[in-house]
């Protein structure tokens, strides 16, 4: 158990490194929008979703209706339906209680790291849970710290803004297990870019990944029928 926790923590550091400046800037914005520390803490604990928290802070500051805020949050986080479905392959017959706890910490970043580690093998669900909560703790602490610190932190120090992008690039490389995965990644990138330019919000993530996975699957089945070895 101790070694599971240790491996979870050591896998979590790029996420924590990336979350820290983002959480800080969220706190700074929230403080300007009239949030007090306990409100920031309540939001980061109860919601724990970066993108929608930024938008909610702006909407609350701008006096938007609660219904509009909740609807927006729902739309932004719908992409987690896909991630949760994909992760379910790695939890056959695991208790509902564990899964309910695990699901709380499901973010883009924890999904990406957990999925990669599960595929590599040598990764237990307890390591995954540790990773989720390390990321969550970092998020709560940094966003509340942001409320206290205000504008003291210089933006863009030492390239931390690139930490999550760098991590995603590396995890993408880990996922490229055969030609069909590369093919799917290229389609997804092109589709995401087009959808990003033409669709509002972050619908591009769901639209592009569903489309690319579908085209990838069709391609894979087609190649299997023709007996290709590139699968």
């Amino acid at each position, binding site marked *: 158990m101790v070694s599971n926790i240790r491996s979870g923590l050591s896998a979590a550091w*790029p996420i924590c*490194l990336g979350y820290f400046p983002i959480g800080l800037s969220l706190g700074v914005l929230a403080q300007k929008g009239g949030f007090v520390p306990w409100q920031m803490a*309540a939001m980061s604990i*109860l*919601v*724990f979703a970066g993108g*929608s928290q930024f938008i909610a802070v702006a909407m*609350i500051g701008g006096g938007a209706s*609660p219904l509009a*805020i*909740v609807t927006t*949050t*729902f739309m932004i*986080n*719908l992409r*987690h*339906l*896909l*991630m*949760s479905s*994909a*992760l*379910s392959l790695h939890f056959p017959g695991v208790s*509902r209680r564990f*899964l*309910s706890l695990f*699901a*709380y910490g*499901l973010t*883009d970043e924890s*999904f990406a790291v957990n999925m990669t580690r599960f595929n590599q093998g040598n990764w237990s669900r307890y390591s995954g849970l540790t990773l989720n909560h390390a990321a969550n703790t970092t998020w709560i602490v940094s966003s509340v710290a942001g409320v206290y610190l205000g504008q003291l932190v210089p933006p863009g120090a030492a*390239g931390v803004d*690139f*930490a999550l*992008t*760098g991590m*995603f*690039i*590396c995890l*993408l*490389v*880990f*996922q*490229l297990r055969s030609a069909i995965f590369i093919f*799917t*990644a*290229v389609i*997804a990138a092109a*589709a*995401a*870019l087009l959808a*990003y*330019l033409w669709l509002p919000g972050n619908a591009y*993530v769901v639209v*592009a*990944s569903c489309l*690319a*996975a579908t085209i*990838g*699957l069709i391609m894979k089945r087609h190649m299997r029928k023709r007996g290709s070895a590139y699968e």
Partner: protein
Amino acid sequence: MSDRDFLLLMLAMGTVTYLPRMLPLVLLSRRTLPGWFAEWLELIPVAILSALIAPTLFAHSDPRLFTLGKVELLAALPTLLCALKTRSLAGTVIVGMFCYWVLGLMIPR
């Protein structure tokens, strides 16, 4: 907004965030998925990662415009090479941050 209203709003936001994260995990992990669906789900992670990265590298965010001139894209090349060569997450993140930082100093935005 009163403290009570604020907490209620957070609870509502938390609920609509949590349910999409929880329901598929709890409902799907207990049954055998049809073959095509499991194969489709296997391709989802690579597709999501690629979809998350692409606009960061190839588009400005406000307004949303295609571009090939972002520091992120330049920094992504050595980052990608490092990931392919070393297959080390830690090393890649550090190399990426360093390149992004140095390129940002050299190329004023």
